């Protein structure tokens, strides 16, 4: 090619902001019709690419769909099981395009530890463009207006490669001068916990312009900010020599104001952030507090190992929009999804982006564009459609809020994914004489999520051994940590106990099943079901919670 394209960094210093905005964020100006036009066209390309591959032949059952309608009618909804034999063995010859990198994530904690996803060159190109767009949006407070220096010191509290978040710095760095804390070369040698601590130390010494992190980590840092600043109470004068004069000044002023007003130091007292970007579960719960502490509202981006980076909030930070060129999006309404969970033969209906209803919860189904390996893939994420268009922000496309994983998975702080199998296996390993159980994701007073395990002990065991909630929690906690390493990180990184146990009166769950004609769901039953069951335990059969 002739003229080499400008780097993002050079664009910031040489081009008009409107032009830069147009280059990266013009997808926000699309009408719904134009948005769907991009979706359909790229799906057409993906069908052809995928159909030519061995994997495609298998999923398409030998017949390449000729249209979008045919694709949706004939291609089955898929899960990772449909791809596992090809992808886990990294059988490149079966894929629609040659992978440049393989990303990894937790599949089911314990027994099926990882799932991997291939990324080809074209996918990475789209990913890069979209992540830069998200960065612009993170540095914006209104449409088209952003504040981004040509280089930025960045605190990076996201998992490194081979996790999906590890791609961010690799894709951003060639385009933008980012000084990562800790430096990327060092990250590979560090544990995630160490990475966060070293990163924050450097940030405090040199100052930062951007913060990329998991919501739960940012929240933990914010909560324990004063401890972090003082180095856990061990303040040493010689540490000050590493501080830049600006940071020393800010620190001194912050300490003075803190002492004067009797308030703790806030991150905003030390840092003047251009952008705060967060990923992960439960972000919505932390946003207000983080904004108060950091002086700028966090921008949430969304994605995953299989779907790439698919969504970002905009300047108003009130809902995710999905990038039109990352994946083809289909949505299963919650009721359809639940019906499918109860009846494995039922095929849930899917709806397209222009067929949604505001306020409805949906399970996301994606087909990755540009030679991706997943078609009609059930990611396992639930989104709420907040609105179909945002007139205030001038967006003619739906906006979403990430709710959680699908009910059959308990995701705690974005670190671990606990399934029914995992809990059952842990109970077996612990040799505790648990008669019945169910698990439910709950939140503590600080909006931190945990797994609440409701347990019925065997009647005989309860009479023979000392069985208390504390004993059970500690006993099972050991086996959970043994079985699932991510679970272990939770305690270490966030300082939270991710599990609480409530002992139920023996026979409660059986009585519930008798009364309502069905057993309670093992993982994440509805809140009403839990209330009914607890009422049943307290009040016996008399009244309460009667419903069909």
């Amino acid at each position, binding site marked *: *090619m002739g003229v080499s*394209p400008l780097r993002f960094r050079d664009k910031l210093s040489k081009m008009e902001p409107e032009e830069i905005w147009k280059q990266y964020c013009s997808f926000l100006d699309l009408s719904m019709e134009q948005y769907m036009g991009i979706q359909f066209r790229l799906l057409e390309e993906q069908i052809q690419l995928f159909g030519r591959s061995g994997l495609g032949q298998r999923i398409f059952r030998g017949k390449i769909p000729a249209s979008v309608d045919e694709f949706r009618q004939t291609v089955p909804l898929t899960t990772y099981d449909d791809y596992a034999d090809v992808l886990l063995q990294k059988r490149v010859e079966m894929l629609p395009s040659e992978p440049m990198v393989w990303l990894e994530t937790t599949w089911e904690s314990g027994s099926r530890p990882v799932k991997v996803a291939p990324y080809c060159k074209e996918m990475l190109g789209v990913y890069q463009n979209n992540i830069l767009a998200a960065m612009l949006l993170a540095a914006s407070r209104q449409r088209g207006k952003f504040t981004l220096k040509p280089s930025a010191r960045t605190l990076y509290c996201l998992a490194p490669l081979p996790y999906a978040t590890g791609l961010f710095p690799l894709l951003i760095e060639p385009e933008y001068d980012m000084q990562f804390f800790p430096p990327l070369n060092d990250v590979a040698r560090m544990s995630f916990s160490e990475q966060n601590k070293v990163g924050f130390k450097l940030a405090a010494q040199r100052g930062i312009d951007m913060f990329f992190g998991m919501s739960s980590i940012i929240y933990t840092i914010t909560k324990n900010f004063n401890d972090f600043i003082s180095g856990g109470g061990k303040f040493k004068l010689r540490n000050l020599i590493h501080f830049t004069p600006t940071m020393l000044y800010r620190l001194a002023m912050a300490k003075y104001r803190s002492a004067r007003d009797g308030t703790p130091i806030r991150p905003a007292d030390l840092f003047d952030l251009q952008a705060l970007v967060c990923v992960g579960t439960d972000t919505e719960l932390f946003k207000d507090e983080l904004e108060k502490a950091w002086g700028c509202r966090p921008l949430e981006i969304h994605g995953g190992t299989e779907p790439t980076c698919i969504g970002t909030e905009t300047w108003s930070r009130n809902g995710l929009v999905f990038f039109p060129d990352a994946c083809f999006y289909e949505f299963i309404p919650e009721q359809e999804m639940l019906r499918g969970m109860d009846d494995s033969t039922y095929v849930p209906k899917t709806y397209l982006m222009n067929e949604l209803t505001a306020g409805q919860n949906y399970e996301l189904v994606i087909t990755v564009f540009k030679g991706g390996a997943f078609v009609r893939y059930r990611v396992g994420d639930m989104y709420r459609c907040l609105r179909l268009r945002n007139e205030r922000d001038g967006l003619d496309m739906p906006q979403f809020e990430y709710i959680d994983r699908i009910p059959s998975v308990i995701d705690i702080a974005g670190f671990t994914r606990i399934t029914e199998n995992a809990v059952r296996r842990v109970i077996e390993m612990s040799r505790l004489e648990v008669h019945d159980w169910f698990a439910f994701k709950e939140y503590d007073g600080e909006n931190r999520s945990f797994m609440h395990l409701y347990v019925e002990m065997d009647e005989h065991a309860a009479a023979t051994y000392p069985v208390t909630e504390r004993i059970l929690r500690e006993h099972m906690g050991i086996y959970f940590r043994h079985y699932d390493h991510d679970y272990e990180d939770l305690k270490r990184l966030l300082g939270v106990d991710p599990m609480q146990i409530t002992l139920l009166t023996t026979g409660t769950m059986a009585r519930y099943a008798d009364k309502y004609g069905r057993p309670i769901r093992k993982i994440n039953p509805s809140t009403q079901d839990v209330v009914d069951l607890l009422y049943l335990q307290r009040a016996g059969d008399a009244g309460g919670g009667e419903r069909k």
Partner: protein
Amino acid sequence: MTMNPHIFSLIPAVALLCNLFLFMTLLTARKNQTIYSFMMMLGAFMMWTGGSLMLRLQMYPSPNFWWEVSVSGIILVPWLYYLMAGHYVGERGWVMKCVWGAATILMLIMNHNDMYMSRPVITVEAGRPNLSYITHPLAAVPILIAVLIFISVWRIMLRGLRKQGVPSVHFTPFLIGVLVMFIVIVLQSVAPVLNTLPLDTAACAINAICIYYAFCKKRIFALSQIASKGAAYFMTILVVCSVLVGANSAIRFLFDTILQDYVEYEMIIVAVLCTMLAILVFNVLNLLLSKVFVRDQIEREDRLRRFSTAVNRTLQLDQIIDTYVDLLHEAVHVEHAYVCLYHREDQCYWSEAGSAPIHRKMSLREDNPLILWLREHESSISYSEFRHSSYFKSMWETEKRALAELNIGLILPIRCDEQMVGITLLSEKNDRKPYSFDETMFLESAVSIVSIAMQNANLYETIQRDAQCDALTGLYNRRYFNNKMEVAFQQASGHSISVILFNLDNFRLYNELYGSGKGDEMLITFSRILESEIGSKGTIARYGGKEFAILLPFFDSTAAREIAERIGRRLQEDIRREEESTRHFLTFSAGICNYPTAAANPDQLLSYANLAVFSAKQHGKNRIMVYTRSADNEPQQMDKATIVEEYSSTIYALTAAIDAKDHYTFNHSNCVAQYAASLAEAYGLNGDHVEIIRQAGLLHDIGKIGIPDSILTKAGKLTDEEFAIMRQHVERSIEMIRHLPSLDYVIPAVLGHHERWDGKGYPRGIAGEAIPIGARCLCIVDSFDAMVSRRSYKHAMPVEDALNEIRRNLGRQFDPELGFLFISMVEEGKIKLLNY
């Protein structure tokens, strides 16, 4: 203060001229707030430098006056700089503008009252004037305020950089300008020797030039405005005045010494010389400015003019494209330029070669996002810009690769009558620089010109094509074919030429069966088959209504026959794909003649090919005949009687076949034939026509041979599906009869015998007298015989009742006149009933 009088005068003079010149060029620019504030600042610069100059020259009215002007200019600069910077970065708010404005006014008042410095005192030492003044401590105040204002300017720019995202490169010239001023001031303060030079005024001019450049970069105004006529006039006045002043003593000396005799004409001579000088200087300056600043523009205009003339001189699309591509290569120095034109047939934009024999064939689909962008925005776009538009997101990788391989840099739409008829794709320039604004504008102008030329060429081509082509099929017409054949003969020089004439068989019948619309469709289909088979090997024409001719230079009869056979196969394959099986009967008869073996000139070639077609028809249609000089080709005329005689055995063979299958139908056909012949005779039809109707009666149900026995002899009522099959017997009859050459005259009667007078019949649903008379006769007698005969599923109806039924349906199912005639004939015994 030591003065260097020459330099002190020269430097401010140059600085003043520079500022004045920039100011003049801005007068012609389109103004906005930024330009107004810049002009005000130039005004302050002119006060500064001009005041300084006049002071040095001790001009009228007084040094004090010019001193105050100069210092006021200096005092005004920071505030005006603040205003200009605010407008430049789009800063809002007026508080600080007012604060600094008020401070500036205060400083001006204080300066007027000599509170900073004393008035300068000019003394002359050794012939050189010296300037001295006393500075008061209060002089620190304006310096402090100026520093504060410049800090505000700095903050505004920083804010613009950070908050409003103004690119930092836009500030570089400003920074250089301010830096130069700063360095000069520092140098003057640390090195007293430099203080003797008026470097501050020089820095002032440099600063003005830097700002001017920054504005040009930001396209607030164009650099070419420097070359305006106003600037040339202004410069001329300055030069002439300078010469006049400078040469004053010389002129005086000249008239005092050498030209004493002409002293009374001194004024006139000087005036004439001045005028000549002014004209000369103006033209030279105008030329110089144009050469330096607008040379490219002039060249481009000239090129466009030549291009416009060239493309408007021709109506040949190829030549227009050639000229256009040449222009692109020449004007913007690109390696490749592709002109793609829209092809309605496949809805793609295909690259056109012009007259180049070899070119890279490429196409862009109509739904390509690039095409959609161009259609919506109706303007050119650089490929790098397109890559960052949302349209690019829906580009396929193959499409991206195709454009990347061509190294496309700029794309321009070609529009005619609100339609995008083509696009121009330009590769990156040879120097790898991006297309400039001026180049893009030039190319868009070129596209406008070429689009008009192409429109004219298309119009011409359309008219020419209309005159040469058949409107329905798009093939050449007879006249063009004949001309082409003449030309082919002239160029033949002993080579072989063959002509194939195709004549579609039973095409009138096809039209009657399916309507002329379907017939037209079939003609078009046949044309496409011919085109795909012949390609560029020959010339195809629609020679008549259902006749097609192909001229094949260099082909002998055998090769031509192979082609004709292949076309026949293609036609049958194509027809078989159609849903309705009854279309299977469309065939053609073809005649081939060859030069020089069978014909000696174009007339003979066509005439003998025609004879061969006729011969093919005579020999049973659906065949290809090659004309030879043997007797085989002699047409054999047969009269109707001969035909009837020849085919009577076939007719009876067919009726015997139906007898074997269904005896009722055989008897029924006989009865219908007789009744119908009697009715037709009574109606006054001639003998030939009566005979046709009789034969039609015999054959009208012949198609029932193909109806399954289970339906034909079913005892109960037919189901809908069975009835649908039964209805097919009409078309099946036609299918069989058409294979009896020269008996096709019975087909209209057979085809229409289930049509109803009110139009509700089948197969065509025609009504009234549109139904052939024979068919109307058959309809009445067929119904009558069906009613009065006994069948497996019904008893015979009494004749009275049958006639009453006919009477009731006169005007609905039956022709009233014929029906009434038939009833009366039966009632009067003129028609004898046959029993079977």
